[in-house]
């Protein structure tokens, strides 16, 4: 079951930038690409926990601001010779509003 929660407007996020959403599971970074695609991944780099939301966004990837690990926004997988991954979260954009599926976030918290 999904639970779409309105977390804000697309235009609240700068193009090729990110904002975070606080959850009980930790911060989730919401990215907006130059093509107005939106992705949600954990805000913590698998390498040393860098805030991915502060990285440089290029194509569908982000480069971690601490040590330059590159992660894909759609799969959460580290690129190049690096290994590691972050969780990705389903979201969709409806009439300019970003809807995040928060069901999983709650279920895991209860579990």
């Amino acid at each position, binding site marked *: 079951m999904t639970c779409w929660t309105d977390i804000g407007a697309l235009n609240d996020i700068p193009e090729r*930038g990110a904002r975070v959403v*606080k959850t009980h599971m930790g911060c989730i970074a919401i990215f907006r690409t130059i093509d107005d695609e939106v992705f949600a991944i954990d805000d913590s780099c698998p390498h040393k926990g*860098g805030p991915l939301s502060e990285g*440089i966004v290029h194509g569908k990837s982000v480069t971690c601001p601490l040590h330059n690990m590159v992660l894909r926004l759609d799969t959460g997988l580290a690129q190049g010779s690096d290994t590691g991954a972050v969780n990705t979260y389903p979201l969709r954009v409806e009439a300019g509003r970003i809807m995040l599926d928060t069901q999983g976030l709650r279920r895991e918290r209860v579990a």
Partner: protein
Amino acid sequence: MTRNLIVIGAGMASGRMLEHLFETQPGEWNVTLFNAEPRGNYNRLMLSPVLSGDKTYAEIVTHDDDWYAAQSVTCRFGEKVQRIDRERRVVIGERGELAYDRLVMATGSNPFMIPLPGHDLQGVIPYRDLDDTERMMGLAKKPGAKAVVIGGGLLGLEAAAGMAARGVDVTVIHVMGHLMERQLDEAAGYLLKKALEAKGITVLTSANSSEIIGTDGHVSGLRLDDGRVIACDLLVMAVGIRPNVALAKEAGLAVGRGIHVDDAMITSDPNILAIGECVEHQGAVFGLVAPLYDQARVAADTLGDTPASFAPKEVATKLKVTGCDLFSAGDFADADDREDIIFRDPARGIYKRLVLEGQRLIGAVMYGDTGDGPWFHGLIKDRTDISDMRDTLIFGPAFQGGAQADPLAAVAALPADAEICGCNGICKSRIVDAIQGGARTLTDVREQTKASASCGTCTGLVEQVMAMTLGDSFEVETVKPMCSCTSLTHMDVRRLIKSRELKSMAAVMQECGWKTSCGCASCRPALNYYLLCDWPGEYRDDDQSRFVNERMHSNIQKDGTYSVVPRMWGGITTADELRAIADAADKYQVQTVKVTGGQRIDLLGVKKQDLPDIWADLNAAGMVSGQAYAKGLRTVKTCVGTDHCRFGTQDSTGLGIRLEKALWGAWTPAKVKMAVSGCPRNCAESTCKDVGVICVDSGYILHIGGAAGLHIQGTVIMCTVKTEDEVMEYCAAVIQLYREEAAYLERMYKWLDNVGLDHIVERVVTDGDSRKALAERFHFAQQFMQQDPWAERTKASYRELYSPLADLTMEAAE
């Protein structure tokens, strides 16, 4: 038995539907056609050629009076439909009501007018119908007429080009960063802008309109939000259309953005169909003609009780502006599970981009050479597996003949007179001759033929010719490219930015043949710096191409908190400033207060959301950002000089303050640290700084090229000068030379190693004119740079970026 059909709207969709109807069901329908415009059906797509003078109205009429008469259509043109009574199945027009068995709504759309102040002035028009077109044509008769077009989409550009072709002085205002952003990517948008500018049209992108200004009730200009006013006699708003649903809504039909229809084009009332721009099908509305024609055919079949179903297809866009050849089809959004094949030929102004997903082509954008567009469009529509022709796909159908897919084969197949290097006009045979005459390396070929010696984008091709001619004995030379997005070096790119006056990132990527569509985390910050350095006051800084420290104006720490360093000019502070710093440390729970190596105070452990507040507090106490994070001037360290020291020879503290006040805010290729020592005892450690000054009795010794980081390096002496004013001028000049010549992230000592001390001494010391020019360029740039980033970012428009988008911990707790 004939049934009564009423059609509301005589546009392109309804015209096409009637054609199908009379063809497939002759004599079965008694048709009445309502139209608000006092004329019948014409090809609205051809209004642009009418405007530009390539066609006349008579030539674009699709259904004339004779046609309607031959089909026995009752035309009620110029009569508005007032109401539809679905219970009684009648349409009520201004001149009485009429019953229907079936009704087709083809009411089209209305142009959207931005409700700017002044939008109701005379001379503010949309671009929608023949009347609007005639208004624009009429303007051209007035000598010196000026027009503003708001909207850089298809329609706006066609309006602009049409008026420009008739001699009107036209300015296009577009709110987005590049033209036609829905159809084109940045690179193609850049080429289009260049082509329109060559036609004399002024194009302003990223421009926000704030107010339409009028005189005596008539438009006289447009004011932008940056205060600029563009005078005009006519203002055309071409910013989009909205489905015209008023009649349907009032009749109680299901309406969203458009009139809801199912796959058979039937609305929520089974006796009413809708087609064209007024409909919404599965959440989509339509503005291009191809799907409208499909809908027209489906609606005709539905009326004849033949099962038919509308399925939207990929559509292609073409701009009807003479000399601007562009094509766009499918989905060309950039994404990592998609791959791009990009072809750029800067000399010929050609750009082609294919977007692949797996083994299928899903999008194509082309500019300059669009001949293969329809073929690519076919591959997209048919979902053709392109794996067999992938290597040569970008070259179009002509190259898909044989099974040969070796890229060298394509070069081998080129005729001897094929041009390889566009800049220097070098053909293949010249290069082959040079190789057969003994040239063995790329450098040899460059020296002997000049091929690839100018812009360098043909280097790959020249190397292929060499590989083909020399076989295994040829090894590709390794020049270290800037990043994997390009084969050019940092220096090549810097040179091209200046020589070709490239003033935007899109321009650089196009003209330098970038292999990716929007760069990477390595080249974007570098390009942002180069453009900022070379075009002060013109290029607009791109925040998203900056590393986090510069974007946040504080240093990011390992735990994601930030450290904040206020500027202390020359290392001097006051009791009041210290109190303000202490108060800020308390208020924002600063974990550590540390004196830095550069004699400044560092507040470590500030949370991101507190940044705007702590900056505002420090600003209020008179302090600005210390730029301790910047690829720019960081600190000028000083000793106490003659003020207190028994050895000090000059006012080193005062000079340090003066230097810091003159040089702060300047972006440089890498960080710049400075120091002023009052005597050779060198308490300020000037000899390990990028620029160091050592005061002596006779004047000032200027040192450059020191470092005390990963690499420890003492300075070298550049020169000795007599006065403080000279120190100021020489320092500004050497920093400007470094700004203009170094590669991004190259510290001053590395640049010094590369160019040699002689070169710097020549430009800054020996040649006085050169020094003065450098210093002048530095000070010119400074007027745009010396703005405290903290003050800017404490404004409301920035503040929200520092707080979370949403806090779900609160919601989940409920």
